Every structure is written in structure tokens, then in C-alpha cells.
């Protein structure tokens, strides 16, 4: 019987701790348990035998810490560890299952760390490949404290094996992973990826796990695994000891079994004695395979959002269609502006964000994944990945941290065949459009029939009703007076079939005047008919007023409170201007760091006096004054930064005007923090100062290899390259980069700066220019000639 069949019938037991037991069997203190794979496999075999005899029916291979980052001979370790497990199982003629044990890599994934997601997937794929060759029954991915790394491991395994995957994570005292994920977010993602059992291990004893176990049991449709430590550790005579004995462990575990934990075992500090006591104490505890919860859930890397409990807002603004600024930002790869839109929508009350980068002049296959990654690095809302390009979709789904909303599939064969397999592989809730090769049916029944067809096909991929949200397609009333009615009636009928629904609300008013009025009214009508996901502009007060008012009127839980809270915010954002003598001259605005009205004033001034005078008589004058104040100690770095931000905004308007007429660009600067350094605050300030002077800055980010600096600077046509480093350990990277630039881009000067860089050091490493601080960097760049 395979393990998935077994787990449906009875409770299964994992083995317990490895290091603790092996320390008594020859493992030297401080050495990792896997070191015995090659030096003393007999000890490992005897460990497995003892656990099997104690009643464990899943044995973990002694490979927790084995990976290519730590061991060159990792393949030998894997073979030996699997052979030891097999030897124990076959030797005892046991039907115990062998789980290949995968632990964390020890490195932190980007954006927090420096380990690339794709490299992590490759590494885990490699491990899984070796394990499958040696012959195991399942995979256990355990003790991960980062959702992203967990996903990398699951994907790596899935790509080489169809064996079942079990996952247990190490949750902290706050009931979350180290990187902020709560149990519901983990369950959503892991179930979407097809993981067969999910749980918690390590960090603490059973009684401290109750809350997380309860949350897991409540939302998981797969068995919940609990593998706790034997309490809390302390050091006695140089060895780790734990404060719960086997009997107490068993008692506490019985309580967890009673609340629904399905698969039980132990972690650090537990021994065969603990497992024996555990098996004996839970033998008679009723076992029920968990019910299918049928939850329609998406998640970010922190939390899950349930669809269908109450209407939710999907922010629509990251979409180049009809939005010049977004389109321009995508073309120029100004992802800062995209991120700012994401943050603004989150702050305005969006529950999810739509990400769409579809624009003919953009490489969507590359850009969509990049934008998803960048937005997720600063915003913890679940995302709706919105594209008709299946390659772009797969690239984005692969790197998405959580379980996304996928927009979309439709009733055409091409779409069904390309999108549904991706939903199945990567997990997600898919938005299904009620249209097909013949277009959008004009009638209600036509759309409902397509919906039924899409669902029938989705079922063949193993998708359930809760994995699909239908969009009955909003068409503008400008092109048909029945359009709103048909959309809403179709939506109502599909809802009655048990599905959740979504609509792109704003489409209703395309071509009409005062669009927000129509959008608000349509939104209210749709909410009244049961709309679950409203794709709208959350920054529009009118639309959000309609959303909150409906919440209060419909009587849904907390609707009244949300409405009242929204009134407080609306009052603050009303823009009531208290007259503080706000200056209206551009020069004064920049000097005082005031952004309100700055752009419109810049536009007026450009029309009045021309670009050159705006630059020389306002922007430059203001910045020079601010610089003098700063150097005299009468103003401070935040003021300087703020003024530079204002000047940048003004230059942004100038660039728009120049863009229309054509003209010379400013000095081109390529800026980066060197390889090995992850600090970027200083670089960001320098970049801002340069932009405030009209420079065209290409920011390569942090931890940038020298080859990338040279290649991108060449492509960009940089007039100067600016490098920063905060730590002495990364100065060699800086030297290497300078040498490469001098060799491959002769004539392009390199400027260096940063906390550890001195003028002398700058000379030693071959830099052409040294800048003590951001202000000096700005001066030195402005003095060079354009190439």
C-alpha cells in the first residue's frame, strides 16, 4: 500500500530526533548527524531500526543538512543515507516508508537574502533527483522558516518526481515563520502546489504548538503533521538536554491528536522511547482523514485572503492600458513608480492587486515576473497575475511567493490547454472569462454555458469549484444599453451554481463622461447581486465610498465599522488646505521640500519662461541654497534628501516636455552597490541627488557583479559609473569592477564612495573620482563632460 493510501486509513508516525540519539552512538559533539553517513553508517542503521521497533512507520533519511552548498560529496551522502534507511526497513521486514529528508539550505533567499530563487530550485531539484535514483517513498521538506525557500524546495522536487511531498515548517512564538508567513498562507500555497500533508516541526514542545496546530487543522484539507521537540533545550555537561520526558511528551501529543493532528512524530530531543510512548498513548485516539474544506483562498507571503466571505477590492492601477505614466514606467523600467502605485493602492484599502504589463513595446515574458517580484518585495497583498501570454504567466507563477489569483483562462481550446495545466502545476485560483473562440456571447445563457464548459474541463485537471472565479465580462454601456444587465444576470446565475465571481468594473463606463459616477453605481449593483471580487481603482474616493457604503447597508459583519473608519481616512485625505503661507514659487517649494502642487507649478513655469530658465533660475538655485545650508550645518540630510526629491519631480516634468519635442539628455550615470554588498541607502541618496540635477541615472541595485556593471553601462552609454560599498570586505569587489571597466570601457570614469572608502583607498583601488558624500558626488558628476 503506498503512503497516500495508508494515510487515508490510519494514523502514521514519524520517527524522532537524529542528532540527540546519535550523540550517544559515536557522533562527536558539534559534528552534524549526516557526518556519520560515511564514517559510521551502522550507527545510522541502528537508529532507524530502533525507531521502527518503537512504532514509527515513516523513517527520515539522515540527510537533513545535506546539500551541495555544504558538501561537495553530497551524492555519496544521499546514497549512503538512503541505503541505511533501506537496510533498516528491509532488515526488519517492515512496511515503514522511507522519507527523503530535506532541510533548509542555510542561506536566505532574495529579496531579504542573497540566494536566488531559481538557484535554490535547481539545488533542491538536484537533491531530489539523487534521492529518486536511490529509491525513496516520499519526500519530507522540514524545518523551513521561509515560505519562499519552502516553495523552491517543493518545485525542485516536483520537477523530477511524482512521489508524495510532505512539508513541515518551523513556526516562531508568534505563530508565524521567520519571514512573516502565517499558517493559512502556508496551507494555501502548499495545497495549491499539491503537497499531500502539511505541518509544524522543531522550535518547541507539543504544548507550545497548540495554536498553530489548531490553525492548520482548521484550514488544511490534507493531513496535519506535528513533529515537536522534547520541550525546550538546555545545556548540561556540554550536551543538549530537553525538559520534557517521554511520558509527558506522549500526554501532550495526545491532546494535539484530539484536536485533529493526523501524523505524529518528534524532532530535536526525542528518542525511540518518546516515539514508543507516543504510539502507545495515541493508539486509541480516533483518527479521521481531514474533510475537504473547499476554501477559495489566495495568499501572499504573509497571509491568506478568503474569496467569497465578503466582497474584496482588487486594485487595478498597475496596468499600462490607458495609463501613460505606468506605460512609460514599464518601458523605461522605472519599477519604483510601479511599486509606489502598489503601495498607494494598498494604503487606499485594496485587498489584492492586479499586475498587468501587457504593452506591445514591453517584453512581457520578462517584465511580468520582474514586476511581480518587485511588488512582492514591498507589498504583502496577494496579487492577481494578469496576462494572456502563457510564457509570461508561467514565468510569473514560478517566482510568485504564495498562491496567486490568475487572470485568466477562457473557453477557447488554446486558452484551456495552455492555462489550466499551469494552474495545476503552480497552484492558484483562476479567473475564468465567459468567452471563447467565437467571442463574447451577447446573451446571459451563452455566457453561462461557456462557464459550465470551462468548469468541466477544469475538473479534468483536478481543479475544484473553489479554484475558479468567473468573470462574466463587463462591456461598456456606451456600446450597448443592455450590457450591464446581461453581465449582472449572468453573474447571478453562475453564483447560483456555487462559484465565486469577479468583474472589471471600470469597463462599464468606457467612453462615457464622469466615469466614476457610473462605475460607483455599477459597483453597487454588482455587489448587491453578490460580486465577490471587484477590480476597481481604490484610489478613487467615489468608488471606495460606494464600496464601503454598500458594506454598511448590506448588513455584513464589520461593514458598519469599515464604513466609519473609511470616513476618518476620507476626511484626512480630503486635501483641506490650511493656509500656512505655502509658497507657490518652484524655487521655494524645492527649498522647503514641499511636493504638493510642485508638478503643476513646474508645468506652468516651463510654459511661462522655458526649460532652461526653469532649470538655471529655479531648480539649480534652490539646490545650491539647500546645499549651502546643509554644509553650514543649518539644515540636515533628510532636508537635503527631501529637496532633492522635489527637484527630481520637477526634472520629471521637464523630461516629459523634452520627450515630446526631443532634445539632449542629461549626463548618463550608471550606479550600483558592488557584488557582495547588500546596503543601498547611500547609493539611493546619491542617485536621488544626481537625478535632482537632471542626470539620467541607471540604477543597477545592490550586490551587482562587475560583468553586469560593465555590460549594462555599455548598453546604456554611461558617461560615468558610480560604485558604492559599505563594508571593507566588499572593497576587493570594487577594485575588480574598476579594473574591468578600465579594460572594457576605456574612457568611462569610475567614481567611488561609501562609509569605508577614503581618498587614499580610492586611489589604491584605481578609482578615477572619489566622493566623500552624496553632495560631493553630485558636484563631481556635474563637472564631467558628456561623452
Amino acid at each position: 500500500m503506498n503512503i497516500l493510501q495508508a494515510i487515508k486509513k490510519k494514523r502514521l508516525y514519524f520517527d524522532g530526533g537524529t542528532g540527540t540519539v546519535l550523540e550517544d552512538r559515536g557522533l562527536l559533539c558539534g559534528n552534524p548527524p549526516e557526518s556519520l553517513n560515511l564514517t559510521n553508517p551502522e550507527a545510522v542503521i541502528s537508529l532507524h531500526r530502533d525507531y521502527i521497533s518503537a512504532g514509527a512507520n515513516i523513517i527520515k533519511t539522515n540527510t537533513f543538512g545535506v546539500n551541495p552548498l555544504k558538501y561537495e560529496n553530497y551524492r555519496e551522502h544521499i546514497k549512503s543515507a538512503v541505503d541505511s534507511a533501506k537496510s533498516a526497513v528491509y532488515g526488519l521486514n517492515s512496511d515503514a516508508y522511507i522519507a527523503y529528508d530535506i532541510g533548509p539550505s542555510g542561506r536566505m533567499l532574495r529579496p531579504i537574502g542573497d540566494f536566488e530563487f531559481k538557484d535554490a530550485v535547481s539545488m533542491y531539484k538536484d537533491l531530489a533527483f539523487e534521492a529518486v535514483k536511490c529509491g525513496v517513498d516520499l519526500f519530507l521538506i522540514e524545518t523551513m522558516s521561509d515560505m519562499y525557500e519552502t516553495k523552491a524546495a517543493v518545485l525542485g522536487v516536483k520537477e523530477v518526481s511524482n512521489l508524495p511531498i510532505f512539508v513541515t515548517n518551523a513556526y516562531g512564538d508568534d505563530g508565524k515563520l521567520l519571514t512573516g508567513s502565517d499558517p493559512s498562507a502556508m496551507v494555501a500555497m502548499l495545497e495549491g502546489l499539491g503537497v499531500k500533508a502539511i505541518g509544524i516541526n522543531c522550535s518547541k514542545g507539543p504544548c507550545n504548538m497548540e495554536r498553530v496546530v489548531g490553525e492548520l487543522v482548521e484550514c488544511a484539507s490534507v493531513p496535519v503533521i506535528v513533529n515537536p521537540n522534547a520541550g525546550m533545550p538546555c545545556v548540561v555537561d556540554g550536551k543538549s538536554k530537553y525538559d520534557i520526558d517521554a511520558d509527558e511528551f506522549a500526554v501532550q501529543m495526545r491532546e494535539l491528536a484530539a484536536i485533529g493532528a493526523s501524523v505524529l512524530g518528534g524532532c530535536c530531543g526525542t528518542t525511540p522511547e518518546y516515539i514508543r510512548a507516543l504510539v502507545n498513548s495515541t493508539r486509541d485516539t480516533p483518527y479521521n482523514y481531514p474533510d475537504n474544506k473547499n476554501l477559495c483562498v489566495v495568499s501572499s507571503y504573509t497571509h491568506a485572503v478568503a474569496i467569497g466571505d465578503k466582497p474584496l477590492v482588487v486594485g487595478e492601477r498597475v496596468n499600462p492600458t490607458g495609463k501613460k505614466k505606468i506605460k512609460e514606467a514599464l518601458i523605461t523600467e522605472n519599477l519604483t513608480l510601479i511599486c509606489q502605485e502598489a503601495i498607494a493602492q494598498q494604503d487606499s484599502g485594496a485587498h489584492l492587486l492586479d499586475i498587468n504589463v501587457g504593452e506591445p513595446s514591453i517584453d512581457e515574458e520578462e517584465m511580468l515576473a520582474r514586476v511581480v517580484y518587485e511588488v512582492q518585495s514591498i507589498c504583502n497583498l496577494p496579487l492577481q497575475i494578469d496576462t494572456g501570454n502563457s510564457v509570461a504567466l508561467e514565468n510569473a507563477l514560478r517566482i510568485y511567493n504564495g498562491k496567486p489569483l490568475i487572470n485568466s483562462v477562457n473557453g477557447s481550446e488554446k486558452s484551456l490547454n495552455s492555462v489550466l495545466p499551469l494552474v495545476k502545476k503552480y497552484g492558484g485560483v483562476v479567473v475564468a472569462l465567459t468567452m471563447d473562440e467565437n467571442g463574447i456571447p451577447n446573451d446571459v445563457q451563452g455566457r453561462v454555458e461557456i462557464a459550465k464548459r470551462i468548469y468541466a474541463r477544469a475538473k479534468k485537471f483536478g481543479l475544484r469549484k473553489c479554484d475558479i472565479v468567473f468573470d462574466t465580462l463587463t462591456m461598456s454601456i456606451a456600446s450597448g444599453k443592455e450590457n450591464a444587465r446581461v453581465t449582472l444576470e449572468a453573474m447571478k446565475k453562475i453564483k447560483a451554481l456555487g462559484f465565486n465571481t469577479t468583474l472589471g468594473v471600470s469597463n462599464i463606463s468606457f467612453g462615457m463622461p464622469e466615469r466614476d459616477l457610473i462605475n460607483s453605481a455599477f459597483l453597487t449593483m454588482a455587489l448587491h447581486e453578490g460580486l465577490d471580487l471587484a477590480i476597481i481603482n481604490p484610489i478613487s474616493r467615489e468608488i471606495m465610498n460606494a464600496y464601503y457604503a454598500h458594506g454598511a447597508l448590506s448588513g455584513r459583519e464589520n461593514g458598519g465599522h469599515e464604513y466609519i473608519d473609511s470616513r476618518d481616512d476620507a476626511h484626512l485625505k480630503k486635501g483641506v488646505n490650511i493656509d500656512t503661507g505655502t509658497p507657490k514659487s518652484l524655487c521655494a517649494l524645492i527649498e522647503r521640500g514641499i511636493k504638493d502642487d510642485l508638478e503643476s507649478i513646474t508645468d506652468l513655469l516651463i510654459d511661462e519662461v522655458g526649460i532652461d530658465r526653469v532649470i538655471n533660475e529655479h531648480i539649480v538655485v534652490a539646490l545650491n541654497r539647500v546645499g549651502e545650508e546643509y554644509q553650514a550645518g543649518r539644515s540636515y540630510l533628510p532636508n537635503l534628501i527631501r529637496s532633492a526629491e522635489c527637484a527630481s519631480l520637477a526634472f520629471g516634468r521637464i523630461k516629459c516636455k523634452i520627450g515630446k519635442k526631443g532634445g539632449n539628455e542629461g549626463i548618463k550615470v550608471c550606479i550600483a552597490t558592488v557584488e557582495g554588498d547588500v546596503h543601498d541607502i547611500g547609493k539611493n541618496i546619491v542617485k536621488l541627488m544626481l537625478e535632482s540635477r537632471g542626470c539620467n541615472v541607471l540604477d543597477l541595485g545592490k550586490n551587482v557583479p562587475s560583468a553586469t556593471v560593465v555590460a549594462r553601462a555599455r548598453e546604456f552609454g554611461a558617461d560615468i559609473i558610480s560604485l558604492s560599498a559599505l563594508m571593507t570586505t566588499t572593497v576587493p569587489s570594487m577594485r575588480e569592477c574598476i579594473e574591468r571597466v578600465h579594460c572594457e570601457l576605456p574612457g568611462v570614469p569610475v567614481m567611488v564612495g561609501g562609509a569605508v572608502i577614503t581618498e587614499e583607498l580610492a586611489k589604491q583601488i584605481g578609482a578615477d573620482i572619489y566622493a566623500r558624500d552624496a553632495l560631493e558626488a553630485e558636484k563631481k558628476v556635474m563637472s564631467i563632460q558628456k561623452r
Partner: protein
Amino acid sequence: MIQERVNKLDIVCDAAEFAARCGMPIGEYPDCFSKVYEEVYAVISPSYAYSVLDVEECGNGVKIGGIYTESAAITKLLRGCQRVILLLCTLGASVQRQIQRQTQISVERGFVADCIADSFCESLASLAQKRSVKMEKIVNHTGRFSPGYADLPLEFGRELVNACGLGKALGVSFTDTSLMLPTKTISAIIGLKDN
């Protein structure tokens, strides 16, 4: 190894520390300070861990927990000490994301968020130092000295932290260049004198 999760109410963003980092006079704050402070404070997750290690002078340098360094600065600091506390403190990964988020809103906010987080981190290190020294019942001890100060290399800190398992306990890892991640993390050596 002792590990403790700290209640964030027990650490502060000290005015002097903030001013030193931000380059402003003590008691003066940028306009965006309150909002940024609120958002940074919401996500800090302070914790620390420490191990007590033996120290012995060895040739021109010193061995801490059996690991040798030639650093003149730490050798001088630890003269007369029999043991050290190796301390690791972190504000967690979420604060790093928050700083990135603030930077996307504006460079000023990112800078201010960074300064606020640094101040909290210093406060955490001071608290951890006090508590660890008290737990070990030590009366005489040196100040904190971190890898990266003077001639004590970052690589030495990495070796020590890894050998004690402190990083694993707190979810702290190292880059290839021995920088700690998450970035708002401090490691420090405190010399203990038994007399």
C-alpha cells in the same frame, strides 16, 4: 545557548542614536518621522541569542571558543578575561522589507526608516547585553565589540556565530562576504572577568 524573544516594548528608538544616524540635532525629527516610525515599529520582531565561550591568549592573538584571531584590538580588549559572551541580536526579516517599502515611497522615508531600525537594533543589543550578563551573574565585563570593528574581521564573527549555532536559532545567515542577513542584526563579543 540561550535564546530569547524580546517584547518590543522593552526596546526604544533612542533620540541620540537616531540623531547620530540621521545627522540631525538631538530632539529634531524629519516631517515624515511619525508615520515611518509607526510602520517600522509595527514589523520589528526583536530576539537575541548568546553563548558563553572560553577565551585564551595564544601567540599574538586570542582563541575564542577554540577559534583563533590575530586581531590586536580584541586581544587587548579581552586581556584578563576568562570567558566571553558571544551575542547575536536581530530585528527580524520583516523590518528589512519595510525599509525597502519605505524607500519605494521616497528615498527620505527609506533613509529615516533605516535610521529608526538601526536605533532599535542598538537598543536591542544593549538590552541583550544587560540580560545576558545578569543571567551569567557577571559583575565585571567589557563593552560590546563587534566583528568589523577595528581589525576584527567579519569572517571571524561568521565562524564564531556558525560554530555556536546562534544564526540558525535566530534565522540569521551570512552572505559570501560575511555580511549578516537580515541586515538589522548585530553580533558582539563581551569579555567576562570572573574576578
